[in-house]
């Protein structure tokens, strides 16, 4: 036991002290905050920016359409600086006025300009030119302001008075979205998918990163012959267990730091997002119970043991980093093909693909937690998934330990699959 502890301690301490660990641990929260803040920021960009208030209206209608449009673009005229400037121009002078306005935009005095004329009143056409012409939200708002103004003019013609007109055309619609699952309402749909994606990415990244860490660690011990010295002191199974547990603990430490700091950042998101110029959006984290948290942890641990023991076996069977990369490709294909399914599973978490992938040991440690994040999973399905994964783990450990103890002592050419199969049958 003391020896197992010595191995775990070495793996843990040496890795946690490395620069690489510190950098990756700092990068995590930045990445996860970015996942949360960037979409919020983008969605705030999809609301119209304040740029549209700095628009010039070139009014060639001759009936005050421009001033009404200005009021409609501003929305709330009590806020100072919102009312776009209106220039009433004669139709013959329009070309010159446009050229002046273009220069103003080029000199960045103005964002852009709208041209309204008789055809606009007829509801046929209007023109906009400006720096924000590609902003869908800005254009949508200007377009709807023009429509409102046209509508108002028409209503006025029919004989509706000004106050009634406002009443009819003013529709301050706030369109909010919410997702419903088998369990009922589940908070913001986007948040849930984001959360599922974050979980999937976290599990995928740690399995790839720490699996390869173990692989190159085993390879280093083999090529430097440290492995032989260690094996003369402890049984190979102890060495393998110590490595998997030690590196697993490093991964867990990193994830705990990631989760805690991301949580703190989320709590502080309002001031952070204000700095990005985004309004604090309502963001309900999906409710994670302690039980669900423990199940997440189990999936992480089992998934980690499954893959890292196989990575260790690969590391023990080869003699160089380049050989290791080649030999690890079947494992990498297993993981990457699972990662490819993250998005389809998020889109259809109850589909057959999702259900099958969450039963197969090589994909279940990533797919099942993702599904858990977005939908409620029947306990039976959860138990079956964990059960198969546990069996997969035992099989992987058995296989790995047998390849490992032979592979570590075999130098020279890379073994074929047949040779490795024979190693498994060796006594010791």
């Amino acid at each position, binding site marked *: 036991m003391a020896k197992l502890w010595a191995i775990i301690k070495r793996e843990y301490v040496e890795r946690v002290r490395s620069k690489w660990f510190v950098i990756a641990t700092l990068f995590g929260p930045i990445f996860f905050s970015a996942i949360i803040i960037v979409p919020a920021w983008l969605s705030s960009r999809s609301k119209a920016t304040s740029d549209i208030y700095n628009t010039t209206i070139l009014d060639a209608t001759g009936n005050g359409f421009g001033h009404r449009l200005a009021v409609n673009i501003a929305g709330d005229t009590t806020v100072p600086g919102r009312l776009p400037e209106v220039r009433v121009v004669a139709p013959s002078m329009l070309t010159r006025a446009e050229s002046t306005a273009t220069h103003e935009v080029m000199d960045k005095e103005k964002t852009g300009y709208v041209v309204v004329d008789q055809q606009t009143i007829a509801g046929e056409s209007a023109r906009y030119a400006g720096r924000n012409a590609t902003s869908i939200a800005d254009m949508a708002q200007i377009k709807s302001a023009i429509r409102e103004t046209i509508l108002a003019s028409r209503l006025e013609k029919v004989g509706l008075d000004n106050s009634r007109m406002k009443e009819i055309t003013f529709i301050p619609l706030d369109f909010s979205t919410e997702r419903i699952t088998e369990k009922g309402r589940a908070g913001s749909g986007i948040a849930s998918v984001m959360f599922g994606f974050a979980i999937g990415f976290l599990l995928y990244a740690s399995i790839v990163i720490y699996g390869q860490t173990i692989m190159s660690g085993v390879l280093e011990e083999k090529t430097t012959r440290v492995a*032989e010295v260690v094996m003369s*002191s402890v049984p190979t199974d102890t060495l393998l267990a110590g490595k998997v547990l030690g590196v697993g603990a490093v991964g867990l430490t990193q994830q705990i730091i990631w989760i805690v700091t991301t949580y703190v950042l989320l709590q502080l998101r309002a001031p952070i997002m204000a700095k990005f110029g985004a309004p604090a959006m309502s963001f309900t984290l999906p409710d994670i119970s302690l039980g669900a948290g423990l199940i997440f942890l189990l999936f992480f641990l089992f998934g980690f043991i499954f893959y890292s023991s196989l990575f260790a076996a690969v590391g023990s069977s080869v003699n160089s980093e380049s050989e290791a990369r080649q030999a690890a490709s079947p494992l990498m294909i297993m993981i990457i093909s699972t990662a490819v399914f993250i998005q389809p599973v998020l889109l259809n978490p109850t589909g057959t693909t999702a259900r099958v992938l969450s039963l197969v040991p090589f994909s279940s440690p990533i797919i099942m937690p993702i599904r858990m994040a977005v939908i409620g999973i029947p306990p039976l399905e959860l138990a079956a998934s964990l059960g198969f994964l546990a069996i997969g783990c035992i099989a992987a450990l058995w296989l790995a330990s047998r390849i490992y103890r032979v592979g570590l002592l075999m130098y020279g050419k890379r073994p074929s699959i047949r040779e490795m199969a024979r190693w498994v049958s060796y006594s010791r």
Partner: protein
Amino acid sequence: MTEYAIDIVNVTKRYAEHTAVRDLTLRVPTGSVYGLLGPNGAGKTTTIRMILNIIAPDSGTIHIFGRPSSDPKVTERMGYLPEERGLYRKMQVKRVLKFLAELKGVKGSEAERRIDDWLERLSLKTPEKDWGLSKVDELSRGMQQKVQFIGTLLHDPDLVILDEPFSGLDPINAQALKDTVVELKKRGKTVIFSTHLMDNAERLCDSVCIIARGEKVLDGTVTGVKEEHGQRNIALALEGDGMKGIASILSDHSLVKRADDSNRFFEIELVPGGDPQTLLRRVVESGASVQRFEMIQPSLHEIFLKKVGAAGIEEGMTGHG
């Protein structure tokens, strides 16, 4: 203390392609320096790994100090230096050593004390510079070898196993290693090392075992082996170019079996029952002026060549070195 540090009885280890060790029986007396000699691929490393319980024999038994080699108590009494050497490159020297000591059951504070002792002894720790605080890959190759050697001995093992310890050592470290082996023996420790360099074995070992193709060729004390398997040869050197004058004597197959020109002297093997005095008399009678006439024992190298044969050389045997 038991009589034998290592007691191997009828051990066989097979792999799919070949038998690495075949029916090997070997006894290493406690407190001796023992050489395991043989060409590359003879089964030396496999034998050592079985002694260390890294691999298990297919049949036969191995006892270390009277206990089965799988007994965990036994592993803590053994120190091992593998053939090709390396350490965790990115790790601090002291922490590597502490880790190796902990694997052998040495407690932390005791390990630290011993590490400082050893670092000072092998001048890796001087008032100017403590290499123990450096990372392994900052050390020169020679220094890394010293560190690894410390790692082998930190837990003060009773049985020290060195696999090809002299390969790749610079002359200074090789001398330090020899001194340490002698010192270990004086302290009653048992040292077993494998080598294909017969000179080292001849100088250091009390007993040897020669193996080839997985089988024992011969074993025993160095003196015993020489008496049993060697002939008594004669070194003969004459003044000037007197050698020509005795050519007829050397080619007389009723007296001389073989004469080997070693440049500065002839190494002469007499036919069985041949009398050295007869040879000396005939040489003097031929009028040659004798500079050296000496009864010499055959070297281990010669015995090895005779026993293992040319096939052994082809498999990687090197002579002196």
